[in-house]
């Protein structure tokens, strides 16, 4: 009796293991996509692709708690034995880092033909499409739009600097903005600028979503954040508005951070990966992402911009992202010294 019970226990244990290992169905075509884009937006695109192509998307999503770089680091660690086919990133500098570290493979994507040249890697390692802009979110119940700064430089001289928020400039799109300013203004001016923001008492918050929360809850008057965070909150709070900074004739323009997608070197499902990238880079998908609220400034000619900002003519900051990437390490180190130590 005891022996029978032991055998039963062993069989049960083996069954648990076997079911675990046989979790995948080999007959269904699939593509493995790692993405740092918010799940609520990317999940819908995956479903659309599945319906259209019959290829199942096996996704791995990143989270804000890992500063949305967990998967990029996972790709580097998996480099010798890759598991992912495609990496869809919500920003650009991490893709450049992966290219530098030899994680990516060249891809020739037909849908990308209509993209502006600055959104396509000259070597074909990555492709950029519709972007999010860095904006100033303002609570009009606390301060009028006329009294708000119109440029990043004016922000440092604003009477409301202590009531202004910024996410830690060492993570995410805020660190991308810092690196681009290091390129555009030069290292010395950019460092001085952020030092002055810190010294003047700007509120440093955990992330962009916290910035918009604080402005919405009237804990702050205004703050620098991304359009996806700002516009989603504006739908719920009519007191909020956004300002695209640096729109004057001699100003540098607003930073737009594109989505990027790349093919992983040694990807296990190359054909399906190609199909997914073609789909993601198409004008139809970009329009779907605009309509859903993830992208606000499209790059395909026949895609219409987000309704919330359609009326505003935006001057976009000219950025050499390759140069910005070269400055990233130094910029992050100096921002850590200014804002963390």
């Amino acid at each position, binding site marked *: 009796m005891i022996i029978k019970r032991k055998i039963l226990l062993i069989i049960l244990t083996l069954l648990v293991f076997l079911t675990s290992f046989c979790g995948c169905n080999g007959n269904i075509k699939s593509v493995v996509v790692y993405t740092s884009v918010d*799940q609520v937006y990317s999940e819908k695109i995956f479903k659309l692709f599945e319906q259209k192509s019959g290829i199942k998307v096996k996704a791995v999503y990143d989270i*804000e*708690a890992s500063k949305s770089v967990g998967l990029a680091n996972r790709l580097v*660690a998996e480099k010798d034995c890759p*598991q992912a086919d495609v990496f869809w990133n919500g920003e650009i500098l991490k893709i450049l880092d992966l290219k530098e570290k030899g994680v990516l493979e060249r891809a020739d994507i037909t849908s990308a033909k209509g993209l502006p040249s600055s959104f396509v890697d000259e070597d074909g390692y990555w492709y950029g499409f519709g972007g999010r802009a860095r904006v100033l979110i303002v609570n009009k119940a606390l301060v009028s739009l006329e009294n708000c700064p119109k440029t990043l430089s004016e922000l440092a001289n604003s009477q409301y600097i202590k009531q202004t928020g910024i996410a830690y400039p*060492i993570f995410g799109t805020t660190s991308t903005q810092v690196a681009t300013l290091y390129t555009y203004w030069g290292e010395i001016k950019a460092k001085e600028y952020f030092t002055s923001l810190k010294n003047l008492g700007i509120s*440093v918050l955990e992330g962009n979503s916290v910035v918009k929360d604080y402005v919405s809850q009237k804990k702050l008057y205004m703050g620098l954040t991304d359009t996806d965070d700002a516009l989603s909150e504006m739908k719920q709070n009519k007191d909020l508005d956004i300002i695209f900074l640096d729109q004057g004739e001699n100003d540098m323009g607003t930073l737009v951070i594109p989505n990027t997608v790349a093919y992983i070197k040694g990807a296990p499902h190359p054909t399906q990966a190609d199909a997914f990238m073609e789909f993601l880079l198409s004008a139809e998908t970009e329009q779907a992402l605009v309509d859903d609220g993830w992208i606000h400034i499209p790059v395909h000619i026949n895609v219409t911009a987000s309704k919330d900002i359609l009326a505003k003519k935006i001057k976009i900051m000219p950025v050499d992202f390759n140069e910005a990437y070269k400055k990233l390490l130094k910029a992050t180190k100096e921002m850590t010294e200014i804002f*963390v130590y």
Partner: protein
Amino acid sequence: MKFNLFKGVHFLKVLAVVLLILLTIAPVLYIFMGSIATTFKGNITIDYTSGMLLLFKSVLLNLGAMVLTILFGLLSAICVWVFLEKYAVKIALGILMLILLPPFIHTQSWIFFVDKLNSFLEQILGVALNFNGIFAVILTIAFSYLPITAGLCLIALLSIPSELSDMCRIDGGGKTAFLKIYLPFLYPALCIGGLLVFLLSINDYGIPSVFGINVFVLELYSRFSAGNSIYSVFLAGFPLFLLCATIMALFGFYISRSNFSFSTMKCINPFKKEKFIKTPAVFGLVILVFFAIVPLFNLTYEAVRVKGAIAVLANSVNEISYSAFISILAAVFSFIPALLFTYSFYKSKARILFLGVAALPFIISSPIAGLSLIKMWNTPLLSFVYRSPIMPAIALISRFAFVEAVILTVAISRLDKALIENMALHYPGLFRFFKCMAQLIWKECLAGILIVFALSMGEFGVTLLVTPPGYQTLTIKIYNYLHYGASEIVAVLCLFMLVVMLLILLLLFLLLKGEKNE
């Protein structure tokens, strides 16, 4: 002739150590060796000077939080001991299970609570509380980790020998007896709880950064984010690693001196009618009320805003079942190395040292632990395991297996040595030995499994990096929605997690009650 595979003690010892190393510290060793090699090649240079002041500040901050958590834990335990004597044993296990409620829930709840309080105060008095900075960080950490210190302290109180209680009741020593006899019994539990709180909070930047306080781990994450190599991040965090290793050694010291046992828990309070114990008990009651009400109020407030709570849960069935699957695997299979280890080393003085080594994955930050697991398991030989859905369970075993090993080791060390020797002599072999042992320490075994299950359900730092494509855990989904600002969906999922855990606990109590009577 009957063949007994586990009769050879040497074989078992080797197996126990190999299993423990393979499942726990091998990835850490891998990273450690890689870091040393990279340093010698001159590829990495780390300047420690600038980070030291920040590390010092972080230590001070977390020491403050640790002291407050210990104080809150002590008062809460006294409250249950005095006012809820009848249910104290069950409450002790219940409180320990509340470790499951992630710290971000407490953080958000406290911000929400103070906001509501402030709007009320502003209307009545025209003033508002400034809930920010160090005070807010320490208070939130104290409430987030209260289950650890309160649970352990209560278990220690309930494990005090009944002879002592009788003596105190008969002699009527009052306050002096409590301070001189009872309190020393609680020291190990309070120290263990406090050190555990320190270890958990010093490796987390989440709560401090919400309240505008910078800590050392934030600097490590900035390196991680800027694309530094894993070796560089590991080396930059080495002072913190050394500090945590020292804390772990202290932890081992107090574990070896602890005197609490689940098996002998009994609530006898000789001071319950004394006035001196009522004041801390009332303070404890206030703390427990805040601990329960603030998150519950916030979660319920958010959850009632959801129109289709059932639909939210239905959409999360895959995540819920997958989380439960890997957490059960982790909790049950952590038991195997823990048992082998305990069986092989219950006589050895080196067991604390081995346990300390096995705890290393617990004291390094989760991104490093996760990436080191990838480096080790995602190789041509082992990648079939890495790709499988059980990989997160292996990661969780690597992080939490030592918890069960510690609990079993402590439980066996509390038993009469002669009894164990007799059992080993008359019932040789691991299975038979365990069968006898299980009669004596089943509560500890169960508690260990439940704690690892709870810790596994809430883990996200390591599982994010090793979860296979197409799968997702509930906690990762919660974090995803949290960023999106869907706090009401987060509230529904958190409440669901809490209810499930309490139901499991209730079910276990009912089952075990029947078993005991039988």
